[in-house]
């Protein structure tokens, strides 16, 4: 067993699949950490519109939970909102798009890249810089951004966009070019924040939505490949989060070659791969795979149950890594963002982290 490592030493070693003292840990605790600021009554509207508050959540989260990474997810309506879509901000719920801006194929050609020095794009970049400055000497930090197809679906409405992929592909491509230009500007913006990585949400690369041909045409080949390269060229580790049920693992891991791949597990879906299956199939040979605790347990289970779930996952992962002769390329994480609901139990998150620190020892 390796001597106790710092967060940075451990995470760096895991990214290279080198020997570690224990598995890395990252519950995707983002919006929920607003409860750790001040008296804990900050609303979502305040949190997503104030870069200092946004950053403070990650800084306080690190103090409280003691994690190996800090990844600055705000929500998935940042880009759509700055493109002109209506965003609903409830007091204690993740903001979401409630008014799309594509009403016909001609609207795809009306998109324009917004000024990223304004709006929530600016809040996201400024907030990311603040927490990166504060945490870069402790953990590996990363920004979080929507991929072009997700940004477009949030702006146009997923159902409309998917039908237009079928009926008006050229119009969809024109809009995707604009989304990619917007994303490209954000990549440069994130590079200036000092984060060590950038995590892309490439949600629609999943077989419940798109086949290989469609995904390659509408995201992978022309758009994501450019952005992935740009991320690395700008000095950041390219990471991917995809919490869909049937992710395109061959494309998003073997072709895209991310440093970290964060994913969920859906036991009801017969083809959804568990942590051990992902490792057995060789995906953790290529990158640090992160997952797959069900985010609902942080609301609906007890701390004792979360400890049992985490223990089981650690055992499953360690056994699978051992069989594959891998040293550390799996991160004990939640499959998706921990629900930032007011009923989310911080003690459950702590239970996952504290349990993984013990049960994840190598």
């Amino acid at each position: 067993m390796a001597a106790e490592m710092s967060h940075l030493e451990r995470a760096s070693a895991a990214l290279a699949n080198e020997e570690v003292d224990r598995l890395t840990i990252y519950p995707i605790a983002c919006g929920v950490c607003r409860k750790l600021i001040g008296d804990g009554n900050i609303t979502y509207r305040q949190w997503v519109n104030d870069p200092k508050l946004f950053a403070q959540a990650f800084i306080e989260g690190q103090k409280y939970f003691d994690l190996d990474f800090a990844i600055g997810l705000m929500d998935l309506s940042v880009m759509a909102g700055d493109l002109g879509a209506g965003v609903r901000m409830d007091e204690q719920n993740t903001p979401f798009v409630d008014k799309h801006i594509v009403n016909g194929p001609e609207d795809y050609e009306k998109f324009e890249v917004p000024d990223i020095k304004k709006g929530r794009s600016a809040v996201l970049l400024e907030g990311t810089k603040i927490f990166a400055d504060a945490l870069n000497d402790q953990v590996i930090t990363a920004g979080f951004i929507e991929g072009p197809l997700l940004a477009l679906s949030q702006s146009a409405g997923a159902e409309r966009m998917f039908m237009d992929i079928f009926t008006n592909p050229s119009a969809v491509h024109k809009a995707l070019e604009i989304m990619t230009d917007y994303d490209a500007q954000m990549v440069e913006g994130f590079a200036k924040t000092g984060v060590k990585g950038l995590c892309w949400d490439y949600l629609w690369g999943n077989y419940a939505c798109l086949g290989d041909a469609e995904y390659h045409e509408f995201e992978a080949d022309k758009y994501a490949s450019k952005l992935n390269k740009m991320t690395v060229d700008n000095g950041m580790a390219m990471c991917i989060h995809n919490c869909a049920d049937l992710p395109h693992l061959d494309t998003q891991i073997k072709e895209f070659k991310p440093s970290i791949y964060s994913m969920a597990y859906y036991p009801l879906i017969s083809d959804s791969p568990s942590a051990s299956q992902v490792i057995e199939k060789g995906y953790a040979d290529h990158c640090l795979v992160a997952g797959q605790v069900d985010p609902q347990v942080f609301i609906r289970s007890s701390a004792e149950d979360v400890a049992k779930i985490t223990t089981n996952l650690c055992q499953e992962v360690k056994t699978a890594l051992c069989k594959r002769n891998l040293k550390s390329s799996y991160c004990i994480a939640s499959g998706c963002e921990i629900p930032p609901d007011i009923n989310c139990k911080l003690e459950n998150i702590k239970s996952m982290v504290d349990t993984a620190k013990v049960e994840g020892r190598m």
Partner: protein
Amino acid sequence: MGEYGLHYGGKYMSSREELLDKLANAVVSGKVDMAKEGAQEVLAAGNSVLTALDAINEGLVKGMSIVGDKYAAYQVYLPQVLMSAHTMYGGLDILLPAIPKSEVENRKKCLIAVVEGDVHDIGKNIVKTMITASGFDVNDLGKDVPVQKIVETAEADQTNVVAMSTLMTPTMDGMKATIDGLIESGYRSKCKVIIGGAPTSPSFAETIGADYRGANAQDAASYLKEVL
């Protein structure tokens, strides 16, 4: 020209089989204009050739079933499924009004909604399509629907099924509130309640008193056909 085609006054009229094939093929290929045209031809041909109900069940629904099977087998994906659903509804809009009231009354009813506080409805729409394709008369209340509206509409419709969906954790409690409302109104025992959406699970369904949480849209439709 099909071998069963008929000529009336010099004008070619499609046979029953040709009409059914046209409707099914329209749905499979996602061609809404073809479905509408086929539906109009059904009405023009009259009940002696093909009733509207048979055109729906053996044409449009058959096509949607083929698409559902192909989707389950990863042979087609969401864009095609959505286009096929859009096509099926195009044909249904024309054919449903032509079904005699007595036959409509025999169809099982389903009320479907995304609960209050959530506007993500793509999953709900796919489930609606599969339940419609299973022969249910579906009343779609849309998205962001208040508890009281679901409860009151369930009773007013005398619905057999209440189907609810949400993609967000904070709005999951709206499902329980709806079931509590159905219990309070005395209607819960008269309907099945099914739920869906990424954060939900069978154990959550059990906790809140719902009858079923399937793995996917086809699964939900199969369950309802089985129990009703």
